[in-house]
């Protein structure tokens, strides 16, 4: 848009129009950010035998050990993510799950009877590849 056209547009609008445009743009921008943002988790809940034994904020880096059915289980929180770090389990499937961070994501060590679940505003999730479940 040329300077002439800009000047024309400025003269063609009233103060109320300009306020309306500014507020509308802010509203649309805020809504877009809110709607497109994927919910990050707020804290991780550590459950043993389906009972909550620990709540850890994802905002604080730390390694915490909890007692699992087969011994100590190390849970690592780092930069808003969490993972099962190490534990005594025959096949170590839980550690292969890697980091989780999104609300609703979870990782478990079944032999240890330990479940990590990231909480947040959206408790439901669809599994990877847009699948609702995997038959295995």
């Amino acid at each position, binding site marked *: 848009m040329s300077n002439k056209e800009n000047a024309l547009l400025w003269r063609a609008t009233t103060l109320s129009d300009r306020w309306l445009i500014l507020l509308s743009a802010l509203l649309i921008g805020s*809504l877009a950010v809110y*709607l497109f943002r*994927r919910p990050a988790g707020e804290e991780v809940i550590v459950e043993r035998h389906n009972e909550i034994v620990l709540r850890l904020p994802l905002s604080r880096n730390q390694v915490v050990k909890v007692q699992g059915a087969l011994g100590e289980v190390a849970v690592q929180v780092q930069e808003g993510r969490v993972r099962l770090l190490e534990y005594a389990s025959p096949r170590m499937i839980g550690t292969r799950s890697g980091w989780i961070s999104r609300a609703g994501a979870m990782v478990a060590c079944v032999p240890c009877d330990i479940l990590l679940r990231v909480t947040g505003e*959206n408790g439901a999730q*669809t599994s990877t590849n*847009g699948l609702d*479940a995997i*038959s295995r």
Partner: protein
Amino acid sequence: MREMKSGWRVAVRYGFPLLMVALLVAALWMSPRGAQPQLHLHTRLLMGTLVNLTIGSVPRSQADQAAQQAFAEMVRIEEVMSSHRSDSEVSRINQVSRETWQPVSGELGLLLRQGLQVTTLSQGAFAMGLEPLTRLWGFSGNPPATQPPPSADLARWLQAYPSSGAIELRYLGEGAAALQESDQSTLQVRLKTQSVGLDLGAIAKGYAVDRAVAILQQAGIKDAVVDAGGNLRIIGSKEGKPWRIGVQSPRQQDQVVAVSQLSGNMAMVTSGDYERFFLYEGKRYHHIIDPGTGLPARSGLSSVTVQAPDATTADALSTALFVLGAEKGLSLLSHFPGSAALLITEEGKPIRSAGFVGEWLSVPQ
């Protein structure tokens, strides 16, 4: 010049708000939250696996309450049917001397009857009396076994295991047709020899899934996926669209090789040689045991996925088909209306029965 100025004024007055509204609608329509149905996910560690309940189309409070009831039912079933719990009804039956008739609850009796039908039709490929053998192999041990049991022990078990009638049921009341879940005194079970012990590991999880579905339906849930470690059943749909269920690759655990789009009512259960196994001297030993040999089944298959109207049947059939192999297994399916299967050979080749709902992915995801 005045006309041009007036045109701009009209455009700004009316066009800009309309544009804003259009953008807002587009943002809502395109956003992930706008596109995703509201699902409520509940998870528990039960029956030695991760159980997920995905519930749709109802308020969170209703989903929460229904999920708690469904989990409670699965806990109850585990308490009755687990052979790993010393206080379960199954363990009580296993502890008494053989060749004696023992009372059995109507619920367990009905499940045994259903399982024995599969045993008969599969000519013993599916068996519920293998507890002594599975204990020998130790796949569920703590820690799990890393090498096969001594061959002498296996030979002893094989010699003592009856070729037929390992588990017998009898009715003292009006007969099988009148049997109710609440009956406590009309049904008895007898295990033939010490080499026979109840192990419902190939059917009870499916039964628990079915019971969880029944509880959810009683609570007014119409759309849900009940997934007990990959043994699953769907009801309804995901806001009018089919649920998308993957079939795990037998050799690459982070990939799926097929996707089924299911709605209405359908169970889907997979048995594979990759679930519990160990490698010993270069050979894979997995947990699906062939009762005819006492060894891990070698039927040329690496996984079997069965679809059926209920998860109990699908669970039992997936094991039976795995043991029987492709030809006899597909023949067995004809006895079970509404059932279908996807078999994956050890070479990774898919074999589909008629009626299997799903798409084989040429490039696994």
